[in-house]
């Protein structure tokens, strides 16, 4: 169940933001994409999810995602935790979680999953009947992750999950992602600016600069690389 991008181009009409990107995420693996503002990280994520037009090949589970509509991509198990958390503010916490399972038909298993995530994040259980817009940033991020997991994905795409969270919450969040990876064998593609924390849980990483892959390697290699150190780790 490898996600494999081959020579992917994507953009918003006038020219490509992402150019000739090839990368892969293997089964059960956490892969991070590091890049500065405007490097095309979010564009790449939106391209995989089918939210924007793209060319090239995005192979997953025997399908080419480039040919599929966004809802088919979700139904194939490629699910995104969108940047800014994508909270549906006027639905309650529980309705948000159930919305994550929109594509599923196995009602009783959905209810069991709901209890699992309440168990994992008791704060969400306490607030299950509250409008999700009233949650704190950290709680909304928990909601975003568990909502994505409610769809029983095969691979999770996380678009800058650390955005707007305090350092403590960022640490908690990445611990949580790591534990989901451990417990479920969940493959993840994480896009981040916070290189240190992302590299701490990833196996491999890619460097995205001005829309193109500028480097790749395992985390040890990336942490030592001068380009990453200077640009993202600050030493």
């Amino acid at each position, binding site marked *: 169940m490898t996600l494999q991008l081959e020579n992917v181009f994507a953009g918003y009409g006038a020219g490509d933001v992402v150019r000739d990107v090839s990368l892969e995420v293997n089964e059960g693996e956490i892969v991070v994409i590091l890049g500065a503002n405007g490097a095309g990280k979010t564009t790449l994520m*939106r391209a995989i*999810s089918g*939210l924007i037009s793209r060319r090239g090949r995005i192979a997953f589970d025997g399908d080419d995602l480039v040919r599929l*509509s*966004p*809802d088919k991509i*979700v*139904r194939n198990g490629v*699910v*995104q935790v*969108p940047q800014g958390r*994508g*909270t*549906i*503010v*006027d*639905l309650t916490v529980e*309705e948000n979680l*159930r*919305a*994550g399972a*929109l*594509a599923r038909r196995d009602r009783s298993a959905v*209810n*069991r999953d709901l*209890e*699992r*995530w*309440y*168990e*994992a*994040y*008791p*704060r969400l*259980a*306490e*607030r*299950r*009947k*509250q409008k999700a817009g009233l949650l704190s940033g*950290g*709680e909304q*991020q*928990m909601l975003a992750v568990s*909502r994505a*997991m409610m*769809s029983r994905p095969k691979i999770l795409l996380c678009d800058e999950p650390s955005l707007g969270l305090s350092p403590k*919450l960022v*640490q*908690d*969040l990445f*611990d*949580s992602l*790591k*534990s*989901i990876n*451990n*417990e*479920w064998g969940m493959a993840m593609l994480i896009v981040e600016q916070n290189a240190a924390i992302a590299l701490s849980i990833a196996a491999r990483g890619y460097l995205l600069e001005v829309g193109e892959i500028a480097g790749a390697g395992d985390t040890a290699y990336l942490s030592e690389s001068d380009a990453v150190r200077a640009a993202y780790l600050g030493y």
Partner: protein
Amino acid sequence: MRLTHRRIAILEGSPVHIGLRVFRAAAIVAVVVCLPSVFAPFRITQVTGACTYAIVIVGLNLLSGFGGQISLGHAAFFGLGAYTTGILTVDHGMPPLLTFPISIVLAFVVGAIVALPALRLRGIYVALVTLAVGLIFPALVSRFDSLTHGPAGLFGVSYDPPHSLSYFGGFNGATLWHYWLVVLALGLVCLVARNLVRSRFGRAVVALRDNESAAVVMGVRRTASRALIFGISAAIAALAGSLFAVTNGILTPDSFSLLLTLYFLAGMVIGGTATLWGPIYGGFIVYFVPVWATDLSGLHSGTNLAGVFLGVIIIVITFALRTGVQGLLHSVTGLAFELRPRTPSASGAFRKSRVDRAAHEDRAAPADETIANGRDPGSGDLPDGATRPVRSDATPRL
């Protein structure tokens, strides 16, 4: 609003809560049943008219309130239903009841088709497409007078009460019959709307309104959902139109002008956008404010005064009461009562339930686990151990 005095707490699902709900339902039924014997026939006709408006607003609220797409063309769908029933009964002798499903299906199809170009657009442009529909409809009705009888009007639409029932046999039989038809239709439409909003499709529609790209990456089919909700909303408007045709008897193109759509939108906002009861309040308010304004000022300046009243109400709602009459009633009952949800949030009991317990599982069970309403949502559903997604020691408290 932070309240310092003690409110009466009602647990969700408790006998008191169920009792209150039963009482409310009984009170509504009592009012509906007794109303015809209390009011004069002309008032019953007015209530029928208000309920007709309410039906359209229920549908409009699904599209614009829950779905976030403004429609300036709902008078056209209302008119489409009215003319479908009018033409089929008067010119083709069809029984009225048979024309209702035809107008519903027709409006659903037209609504979904109108929605398709609108889907490529956003915000104000969607409203402009529906505005075009709203403007074109009366012009088409006037133009194709061989079909619609044109500006002269289509007369004699009627739906006679079943004379076998003595209840409808009296002098006001037709008035009562119309009243019951429309009230029952309103009840039915409200039920459909309630179930729709609470369904998986309802959540998808709200998700598309609140955060479109997040909704799409959750697997919501954007085009299909938007077209479907538009079709449903138009179909409900057409049902109201069919009822309007048989209760009113006369149809003219002027009856379905853009102004009527604005009344529907005003009713939605005043009653309470994206609420379930709001459209009913809204329907009555936008129907009766012009009636009272006319009583107040005589026939000449009546409509203008109605506009003033509605305008003031809308301004007040916009600034002070974003959730309309429904929101106001909700806050008023909230002063005295407090509905505690099934999962207690205040007691703190749940906070100590599953995850902490998982950590302490092999020790003695904590004794302080009391859950106020006696149901622990976390217990008993899962076999302990292996299936847990995130181990307690690894679970962060964000």
